[in-house]
């Protein structure tokens, strides 16, 4: 149905407001394609490992690179033009900041309540808590292992814990108030690759590791994990002691926004949907998701559309699947190298993806929009492109085969 009919139905009460919103969101997400008008300013000089969009306004995009640098871009279009470049508003790299990470940054996350603070962790075993305005770390927590992932609970009011997944077999819980790791969760027998807090229950934590297991924890429980998720739901008799969630490392996790389901992606090229209360494998067949990297990617779920969509990076593409049926809706092609992370902006229905080719691409619902042939727009459009910085002064823009 077209937009005018939908609005009339909304006004007459034939359709309720939430359904109207989710219908429009679904329509827009179904037409996602590489944006012709928006782009993110090139500022990374190494592959991008992780990105995060702030939960408060969906305005600032934080990205961490393989050279230890962290960049902040402003993605909100306040210029009034259709053609828009997301500017870099903050950069922490080795030349300008002495507190920068020594090795690659593996995970960045905004503080869930405001954009004054963010956390970053990387291969130099440090978890740094940054003041976003001063660009100086307020505290540094040193972990006993190279950090693959960290997560701070989005809705916790009774605790200030950050879960850290590292090469050590335990999941460390760092307390932000004291600045040290107070708590260790021991059950894995190999490096922990990913941790995620549940968005509904502030004490529930899921962790995936290189020993092929996916465990659910309640951090208040004294003994050990609540349960280990089993991909066969107990049907397969051979290995009863060690139930595995995947036939390979479990490297990426994400809860749905209602906290009821957990999605895990593994190096066996499979994606699984789990019930987060019972740990049951819902047996949704997403097919093969090819990926070469064993370290894991950050994928995202659109929670405002009616069949919820999962955006999973797979080699150089991003695959869009329906969450509950497993049907592949679209393949987004655009990057030149492996895509490592993607983040979905609910307010604008756009997807940002970062990859090893140093670009952050914007995927927007633009099937119907066309640029106006306006002379004013043309000039501004021209001007914004000249703001792209040159790498070094002596670098030529053309290649010469005369040597």
């Amino acid at each position, binding site marked *: 149905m077209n937009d005018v009919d939908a609005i009339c139905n909304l006004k007459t009460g034939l359709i309720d407001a939430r359904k109207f919103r989710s219908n429009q969101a679904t329509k827009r997400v179904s037409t996602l394609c590489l944006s012709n008008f928006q782009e993110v300013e090139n500022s990374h000089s190494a592959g991008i490992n992780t990105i995060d969009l702030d939960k408060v306004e969906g305005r600032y995009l934080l990205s961490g690179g393989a050279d230890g640098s962290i960049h902040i871009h402003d993605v909100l279009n306040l210029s009034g033009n259709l053609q828009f470049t997301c500017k870099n508003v903050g950069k922490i790299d080795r030349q300008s900041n002495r507190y920068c990470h020594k090795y690659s940054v593996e995970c960045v996350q905004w503080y869930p309540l405001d954009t004054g603070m963010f956390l970053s962790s990387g291969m130099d075993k440090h978890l740094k808590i940054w003041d976003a305005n001063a660009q100086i770390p307020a505290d540094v927590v040193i972990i006993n292992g190279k950090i693959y992932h960290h997560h701070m609970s989005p809705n916790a009011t009774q605790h200030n814990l950050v879960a850290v997944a590292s090469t050590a077999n335990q999941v460390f819980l760092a307390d932000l108030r004291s600045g040290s790791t107070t708590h260790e969760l021991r059950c894995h027998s190999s490096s922990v690759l990913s941790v995620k807090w549940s968005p509904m229950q502030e004490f529930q934590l899921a962790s995936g590791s290189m020993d092929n297991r996916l465990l659910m924890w309640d951090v208040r429980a004294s003994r050990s994990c609540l349960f280990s998720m089993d991909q066969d739901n107990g049907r397969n008799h051979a290995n009863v002691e060690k139930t595995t969630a995947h036939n390979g490392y479990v490297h990426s996790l994400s809860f749905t926004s209602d906290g009821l389901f957990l999605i895990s992606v593994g190096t066996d090229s499979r994606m699984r949907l789990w019930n987060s209360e019972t740990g049951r494998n819902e*047996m949704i067949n997403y097919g093969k998701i090819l990926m070469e990297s064993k370290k894991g990617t950050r994928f995202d779920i659109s929670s405002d559309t009616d069949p919820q969509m999962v955006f999973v990076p797979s080699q150089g593409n991003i695959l869009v699947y329906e969450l509950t049926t497993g049907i592949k809706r679209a393949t987004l092609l655009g990057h030149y190298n492996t895509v490592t992370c993607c983040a979905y902006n609910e307010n604008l229905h756009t997807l940002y993806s970062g990859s090893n080719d140093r670009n952050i691409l914007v995927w927007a619902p633009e099937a119907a929009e066309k640029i106006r042939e306006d002379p004013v727009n043309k000039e501004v459009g021209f001007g914004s492109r000249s703001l792209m910085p040159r790498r070094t002064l002596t670098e030529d823009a053309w290649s010469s085969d005369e040597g």
Partner: protein
Amino acid sequence: MEQADENFDFDSAQPPVQQCIAKDIRQSEEALRQMLLLFPEEKFLGRVPRVVMKHMIYSRIPNRTLVDKEIDELNQTGVIRLFKLGSEEESLAILFMEQYEELIERRCTDSALAKRFIINVLKKIKEISVEKAVLANAGFTETDIKTLINNCLLTVRTSTTYWFVFPGAGEFMKAYTKGRQNIIHLIRKSKYQQILQNELEQRDMRKTVQLGIRYHVHDIIGADLVICVNTTSGNMLRFSN
């Protein structure tokens, strides 16, 4: 109308069973039966029963989760049986129970043992593997298990578990892997690594592909080895690497 009310017994009335997917079980069962017809039984002279791999159904019905759930339900109700052949996660073979039982009775040397096996084990355990303890509980001794292994009904998995298998599985797997490799090789060799399905079917591959080209086309589409693109001159099979 009043007569119907008097005869209606409220105590023993059962609420209607929610059968929201009843229609769709027919859908994948139909697809299964159609695909089974593609299997050239005559070539194997009754040594190998008509068997289909589970991922071949994905080429007919695009919603894989639905197919998985329906196959699972058909397995639980005892219409079909699943077997794991091969080391990949995806190599599950499907056999209809009527055929399987008839095959057991025909090929098993000890018919009383076969009957006991069908009644005590096959009807109760629907999984693809079984533990030694469970077999012992059902009243099967070591010699019974040895006879079953000799008759190709069980295969050793670990020291305490066995896979279920059917007679002729080895011959089927050999023909299947060879045929699949030959067809994939043919597609890879083609220019642009793609070939029209009509062209593929016209080639004479009776010696190298025993199971038939159409059987393998469903197989490679379902296993995601090729992408099937709909063109104006029929289906185009493009190799996906």
